[in-house]
């Protein structure tokens, strides 16, 4: 493994340096039919799950075949995607915000061959490489965060929980039987890099124990005032600590009762590790949405306060999600999102129909937000 230079010379880092040029211009990558009809699209139709046609004012058509992807993708798989694009789509493709891959062709004649090609491609383990679906009143791909594959603060895995859930939901990825679209999102800790807090169903990795304190190294690794300031509930204060050998060190003390396990202090100070096998697991949230359609966007609500991490397939989690999806599918009205359905029938009914136990953990007790969620009326259901 000999070092190969790109041309960069560390002795003269500023020589010919190019910076701040930004991304490549999007127009380079527009398929010709997209470029020609941009801003002049008339309507679209979902021909079948995963296959769309967009029709322009000019009469031009673009057919899109949408495929799910695992988000975590190898270079080898990306090269295969490129080969498919070359073979069927003149080399053009795109990704959606939900990590689906979209192959576009400019005539209906080209669709069947493309679909057949995609359906045939499987991994050695047996799963599809490019399952077609993710449109309309069904479940699209799950957006998610890194989890154990790459992050230093996760309470669960991202790729694994998503694989387990999408296997369970696969027929609804390839079908459009639901009352409205249903979007599942996954974030592996409360930091929510994936901002899952406005999803129909959100899978959230969660810690339940206050951080440990690595007294021996804390003062060497951390800015103590920064760690103190990072705590949103003021649970951390400076403290002297005596090590077993009698050395006195500057360290911290944590008021465990006040800790909400957000992990912000760990991000500021690596000597406060928070992850824990029994403490960590999954929270499920429900009923959020982004769209302004019919009613305003809304936040997801916590409906399951904790589920153990059950590697590798998280069966309690996936079965709970399945129960919610089935109750929604059979009970909600056309165009009604999960949150709208829950509000119409009442949350007390939601728990009943989804067979989820309501516990005291689901009553908000965090700052001002809490009061506005308690019931201030006698309008409830028995």
């Amino acid at each position, binding site marked *: 493994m000999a070092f190969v230079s790109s041309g960069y010379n560390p002795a003269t880092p500023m020589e010919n340096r190019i910076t701040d040029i930004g*991304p490549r211009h999007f127009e380079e990558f527009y398929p010709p039919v997209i470029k020609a009809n941009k801003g002049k699209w008339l*309507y679209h139709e979902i021909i079948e799950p995963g296959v769309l046609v967009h029709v322009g004012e000019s009469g031009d058509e673009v057919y899109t075949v949408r495929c799910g*992807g695992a988000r*975590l993708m190898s270079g080898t798989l990306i090269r295969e995607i490129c080969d498919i694009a070359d073979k069927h789509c003149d080399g053009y493709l795109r990704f959606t915000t939900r990590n689906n891959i979209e192959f576009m062709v400019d005539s209906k004649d080209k669709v069947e061959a493309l679909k057949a090609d995609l359906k045939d491609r499987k991994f050695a383990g047996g799963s599809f490489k490019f399952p077609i679906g993710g449109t309309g009143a069904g479940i699209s791909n799950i957006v998610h965060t890194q989890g154990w594959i790459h992050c230093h603060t996760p309470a669960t895995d991202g790729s694994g929980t998503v694989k387990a859930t999408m296997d369970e939901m696969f027929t609804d990825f390839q079908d459009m039987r639901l009352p409205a679209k249903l979007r599942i999102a996954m974030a592996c800790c409360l930091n929510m890099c994936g901002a899952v807090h406005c999803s129909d169903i959100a899978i959230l990795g969660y810690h339940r124990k206050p951080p440990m304190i690595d007294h021996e190294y804390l003062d060497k690794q951390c800015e103590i005032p920064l760690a103190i300031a990072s705590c949103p509930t003021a649970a951390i204060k400076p403290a002297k600590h005596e090590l077993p050998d009698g050395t006195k060190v500057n360290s911290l003390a944590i008021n465990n009762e006040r800790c909400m396990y957000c992990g912000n202090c760990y991000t500021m100070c690596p000597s406060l590790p928070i992850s824990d096998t029994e403490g960590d697991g999954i929270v499920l949230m429900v009923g959020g949405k982004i769209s302004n359609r019919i009613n305003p966007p809304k936040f997801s609500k916590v409906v399951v306060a904790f589920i153990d991490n059950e590697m590798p397939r998280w069966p309690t989690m996936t079965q709970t999600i399945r129960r919610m999806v089935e109750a929604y599918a059979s009970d909600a009205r056309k165009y009604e999102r999960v949150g709208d359905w829950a509000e119409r029938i009442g949350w007390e009914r939601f728990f009943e129909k989804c067979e989820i136990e309501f516990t005291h953990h689901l009553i908000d007790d965090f700052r001002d937000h809490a009061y506005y969620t308690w019931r201030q009326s006698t309008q409830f259901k028995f």
Partner: protein
Amino acid sequence: MAKHETPLLDQLESGPWPSFVSDMKLEAEVRAKNEAGIEFQVPVDVVDDLLGVLELSYVHGRTHWKHGGIVGVFGYGGGVIGRYCDQPEMFPGVAHFHTVRVAQPAGKYYKADYLRQLMDIWQMRGSGMTNMHGSTGDIIFLGTRTEQLEEIFYELTHNLNTDLGGSGSNLRTPADCIGSSRCEFSCYDTNGLCHFLTNLYQDELHRPAFPYKFKFKFDGCPNGCVASIARSDMSFIGTWKDDIRIDQEAVQAYIGGEIAPNGGAFKGRDWGAFDIQKEIIDLCPTECMWMEGKELKIDNKECNRCMHCINAMPRALRVGKDTGLSILVGAKAPILDGQQMGSLLAPFVEVNPEDDYAAVTEVIESIWDWWMEEGKNRERLGELIRRAGFQKMLEVTGIKADARHVSEPRCNPYIFWKEDEVPGGWERDVKEYRKHHKR
């Protein structure tokens, strides 16, 4: 022959959904064989070790990645995230495993050749594993060593004419929905505006000078497919001011069942015949629609542009022609002070590429000036707005208060008046007062 046994991960190879485990094994195998004769610049078995460390996390139920430390390219503070394994002896291939964020083209459109060029760099100088794409929107290269960072950056800028994305306390790589490039609902060219602002603010994107992260996201219409209203500090959502365009013939075609509602989104179940009264008129949140004989009528002045009727009958109804965008501010996930939705700041802003989107940049820069001055360390814009008050934000942006800014007026009358708003100010003469009021 796999380097590490992965009995738990192996169970994630079955089932129909694309298996990331199978994909990783494929990459590990391709690297081991190296039929392309690549001069690998990081260990050949990097992906084997990545599988190994992930398996260990599945055994322990805990991550095995350490804090990042400071790595990056010369002159930038963002774009690279340091990552080290906490079991380097067991998994030397991933002892250093830094992330490189690469700026994605607007709309996430690609040409195969470009993706191959990216992979040429990444399979040689990194693990070959990616995220397409990260939650913020960038192309994510997962796993390389410190000494490769400048080499990767050099090749990206010199040979591929592209750049790194953002990370840390700076402007994060802006992201957009597909916009008018392929969506009939889009009220402006999201790709154009996203690309322009990304380039205009490269300095803010690469050199952390902000109190915390700052996200721009661009939605072409109120459907919000890129979720800007929930997760961006400044959210740009397309909208229109004039009338919804109606094709009455197409309305009849929906009623007659010749066209499936909602672009065919409900084809998976028999919901019965389309009922325009029940499905459109009765669901309109402002009750501004009705039928007059065979004509669908809309009282456009009362429409709040929720998109339902347009989504449900895309061939009959189109957004208006007088389009622009609304700016909402302060959205964020719960950390640290609880979740916040974007709050409406500018109801209608012109989107004009001819003057370099001056109406948009003016609002952005006034907000940044304020947040950089007043924001505390790790305080998102939404938290500052709550701490300082919405009025303060109106003041710094010069935007006039409007009933559109609230969902309802305040319930409590604890109104803070400014001294200059009250005749005579606050300084009073107690002696003068006492002339008429005994102690």
